[in-house]
């Protein structure tokens, strides 16, 4: 756009907002922050979430939890698979965003989008199989059937790691596939792709409130999520400052949240089960045998 011609049209720019309870509100605080591209140039403004947005997101996640956890695991897997389908259909947009924000080559962008879609399919498949692997029938010294089965923990707060798409999908998919609902604080460096992913999820049969995405600062919103008494687990993967991670873990101890600490991991490698089992509770049932 170097010269204005009579036919030139004004660009229609997207307002990047939050994703709470299936809707896209602006931050309650009215604040925004500037997102830069890989060369430090202006890319867009993103909503800067406040503690009240975090509170609203937790309320939405809590409201969505019984319905989502109550669905059959098979159905949850289908919904997560549906996210992958829609992501595939919009892959050009995601590849373009990756290249703009990271400055990576077309081939690398394609590799990462491939990996993100495959990651969703991977966890979609696990949704109705994890119970057989981590649960089971226990041998007990008495005339009883004794079964253990995993159940979702509840509302899980996630601080997403860097890595515009793959990072977010890698931490989010295992949490929702097992029946939890999530409040995600997107990586501070990559809020835009997170909101584009929210648009995909909003149209993929995922009930409103199962995934809520906030964009903003981990140091500002993180402590409110960690101390929130109605959050049952917190994934600190994206917290890069060790002292902040420590503070969040201490704040999370008040209501005995399950905490996943940040650790080095290769996002492109096939994941283990721990991201799912970290936010599952094992319920064991005794039942009399025979008549």
């Amino acid at each position, binding site marked *: 756009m170097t010269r204005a011609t009579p036919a030139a049209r004004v660009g229609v720019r997207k307002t990047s907002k939050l994703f709470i309870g299936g809707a896209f509100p602006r931050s309650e605080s009215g604040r925004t922050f500037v997102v830069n591209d890989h060369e430090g140039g202006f890319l867009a403004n993103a909503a800067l979430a406040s503690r009240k947005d975090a*509170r609203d997101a*937790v309320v939405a996640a*809590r409201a969505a939890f019984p319905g989502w956890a109550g669905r059959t695991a098979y159905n949850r897997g289908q919904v997560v698979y549906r996210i992958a389908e829609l992501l595939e259909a919009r892959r050009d947009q995601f590849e373009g965003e990756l290249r703009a924000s990271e400055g990576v080559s077309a081939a690398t962008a394609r590799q990462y989008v491939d990996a993100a879609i495959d990651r969703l399919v991977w966890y979609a498949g696990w949704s109705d199989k994890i119970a057989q692997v981590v649960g089971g029938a226990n041998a007990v010294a008495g005339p009883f059937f004794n079964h253990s089965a995993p159940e979702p923990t509840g509302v899980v707060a996630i601080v997403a790691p860097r890595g515009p798409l793959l990072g977010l999908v890698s931490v989010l998919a295992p949490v929702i596939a097992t029946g939890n609902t999530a409040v995600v604080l997107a990586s501070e460096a990559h809020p835009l792709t997170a909101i584009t992913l929210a648009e995909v999820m909003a149209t993929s049969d995922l009930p409103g409130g199962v995934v809520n995405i906030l964009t903003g600062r981990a140091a500002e919103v993180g402590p*409110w999520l960690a*101390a*929130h*008494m*109605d*959050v049952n687990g917190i994934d600190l993967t994206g917290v890069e400052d060790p002292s902040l991670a420590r503070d969040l873990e201490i*704040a999370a101890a*008040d209501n005995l949240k399950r905490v996943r600490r940040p650790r080095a991991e290769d996002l492109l490698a096939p994941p283990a089960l721990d991201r799912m089992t970290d936010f599952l509770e094992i319920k064991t049932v005794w039942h009399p045998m025979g008549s």
Partner: protein
Amino acid sequence: MTATLSPATSDASLRRFLHGLPAVDKVGADARAARLGTRSIKTTAKAYAIDLAISMVDLTTLEGHDTPGKVRALANKAMRPDPSDPTCPATAAVCVYGDLVEVAKQTLTGSGVQVAAVATAFPSGRARLDVKLADTRDAVAAGADEIDMVIDRGAFLAGHYMTVFEEIVAVREACERPDGTAAHLKVILETGELQTYDNVRRASWLAMLAGAHFIKTSTGKISPAATLPVTLIMLEAVRDFRDAHGQMIGVKPAGGIRTTKDAIKYLVMVNETCGPDWLDPSWFRFGASTLLNDLLLQRTKLATGRYGGPDYVTLD
């Protein structure tokens, strides 16, 4: 509005008076209520507002499946809304159906928490007058401190103002106890069925002229229940009534008030419309059940600095 009102001699004189009241500017009332709802109440003012709101709650359970156990639990909650914090005020009253008054009274006697009973064929009010009066006397005899009656909306909408008026007068007489004291009478206008704001204003004046101690918006069984504009009109009515007659009448919005934010909006409106005289549980009440839990959660948030959740308040 003159101070020498005795319009209640016939349908015609009542109609002349009620229809002579200034018409309500609907757009203006809605805008005024919306604007008052934008006030920001924070920190110490918020803490004060929350405690005041808790002390104004008529903790209500009006379900077909109410059991004595549930009413006892509710009564205990009314006395000590936050068992972990003795500084938390008690609610104003517990509101139940007439047959459960005795159960509530057993728990609440001596606690300062009042027992309110709904009567007069609540919520529809579709019964003969003698049935309604028997309903009322029964609740008063069982120990009710306050009676929440419903007006006959059918008669009101048909223009039979005298019928409505006489019914309220009769119920008020039925509220008298043998020892000469009387249960307080709250008159439910059921604004959701009155169609217009003008009717809300007329019904408010009608109830006040007939001797109501409180005017109450709704039964909670009809949607819309209490709204800010309707409550604004009722607050204006009690303010004007005091100017004309020197007598204070209470206001009770009921139904649909679920969050602390909503409750604070109402308190702002009370203060701005009627002044601080009405910021007292004797003159303003909230008819609510879930509101109390949200007030407690917000109270805890202010005290501890962290958000709570529904796991930390009682289910009811």
